């Protein structure tokens, strides 16, 4: 199904939901919950957290949908909610110390000397159970991905989700197209260096 057809079907489902057909909302969940999960998982690297966030995304949508005016596409709206909730959860995890934090002082690329930002890096070692079926390179890649600065990590995570174009990502993160291309390239290059491959 093309993006235009998807958007059209979403509009119809929303109209039916507003008219009282609750099953139309079920169809929206079936269509888009996978994407919400992937966004959350990319940001959080935790299945449990990603499930919780994707559930929250749709609870919020369920409540807000009657007032949704359709000025943006449903998917764009949903991605924004998912990204914001995932970011909040990530910060929440850090503030609660639910994961072991390592603070380092490191200037971001492009910043002037003395303007370095402190990066709070969350260590995300996989549990032994989760390691089954995941090869060593994948484990290292996921761990290094989590240690990238947020700007780069988010852009690459979104790019890794099937059918997310550069334009979609730029719209979602509120950046220019060139900025997104640059962030994705920097994220990949940084990972290449860190993984020493």
């Amino acid at each position, binding site marked *: 199904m093309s993006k235009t057809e998807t958007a059209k079907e979403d509009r119809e489902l929303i109209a039916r939901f507003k*008219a*009282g057909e*609750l099953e139309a*909302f*079920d169809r929206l*969940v*079936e269509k888009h*919950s*996978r994407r919400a*999960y*992937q966004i959350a*998982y*990319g940001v959080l690297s935790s*299945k449990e957290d*990603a*499930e*919780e966030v*994707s*559930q*929250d995304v*749709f*609870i919020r949508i*369920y*409540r807000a949908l*009657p007032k949704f005016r359709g000025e943006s596409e449903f998917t764009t709206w949903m991605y924004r909610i998912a990204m*914001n*909730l995932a970011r*909040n959860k990530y*910060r*929440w995890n850090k*503030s*609660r110390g639910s994961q072991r934090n390592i603070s380092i002082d490191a200037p971001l690329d492009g910043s002037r000397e003395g303007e370095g930002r402190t990066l709070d890096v969350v260590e995300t070692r996989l549990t032994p159970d989760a390691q089954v079926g*995941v090869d060593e*390179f*994948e484990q290292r*890649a*996921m761990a290094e*991905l989590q240690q990238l600065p947020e700007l780069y990590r988010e852009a*690459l*995570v979104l*790019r*890794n*989700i099937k059918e997310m*174009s*550069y334009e979609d990502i730029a719209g979602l993160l509120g950046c220019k197209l060139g900025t997104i*291309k*640059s962030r*994705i*390239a*920097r994220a*990949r*290059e940084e*990972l*290449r260096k860190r*993984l020493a*491959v």
Partner: protein
Amino acid sequence: MSEENTDALRCPGNQALSELVDGENELPNVSRHVSDCVRCKDVVGVYRKIDRATRHDMTPPEDLADRIKQACREVAPVKKPLVLWWTSPSLRVAAGLLITAMLAALAMNVARDSKEFALAAKEPERMGAVIARNPNPAPAAAFPANDRTVVQGDEMRVVNAQGGAATGNTYASIQRQVVLPAEVKHVWTVEDLESAEKYFLSALPASSRPTVRQLGPARTGLTVFLRDQQLQALVEGLAAKRWDLVASALPQPRKRNEVRFVGRPVLYDVQLVEKRRVRE
């Protein structure tokens, strides 16, 4: 040296290679170069390998959609709109008859009450009595609304003018405890926004699912889900930290007895505002 191009000066930048991996903005000369250049071919290969690795395990559990649907139904039940049953002619007629009957009963009731109230009002004068006035009336908000809402006995308690429990011969009123609404909005002024935000988050139970949003340089918005008892405890805890609550909606610090706790989930929408910015 082989024919393969390994001259870094002629190689496209990493961004062009990254775009090539994504299949976006593919330039023929970049593709041609990569097919001939060992270094660039290697870089592109690594980028693809990294992509495959970081895409691993992004598949959600099979029952995720079902669980989401269930959670939505439980947390946020939506009433079917009237439109659906209103389309049925027989139901429309039945509803019309019902409404007419209710209006008639209400009109009769009001007329009877008016007559009784008028007689009752004249009764003290007829007996030669003087109607005493309570010199310290309880705040208006402490009384049930002047309507016909049914109030259960266990929702009420006897209070004095200050809202405390009535004792001795003090003037007493009946106060109705209220159930918190599904959404409560509060504004708190704090000394230091950053530490206040951290404290607020650390004071929450794990199930509260907080959302943080920056509303400006000196203002942060947070929304959390809490049970009514948890919210009362939180509000009292924040007041104990000498934060100032700039909102009249319940729950309020030291007014626990005005709330009827039923374990209701409440969406608590908070704004934290830095005091010095307010003063400025």
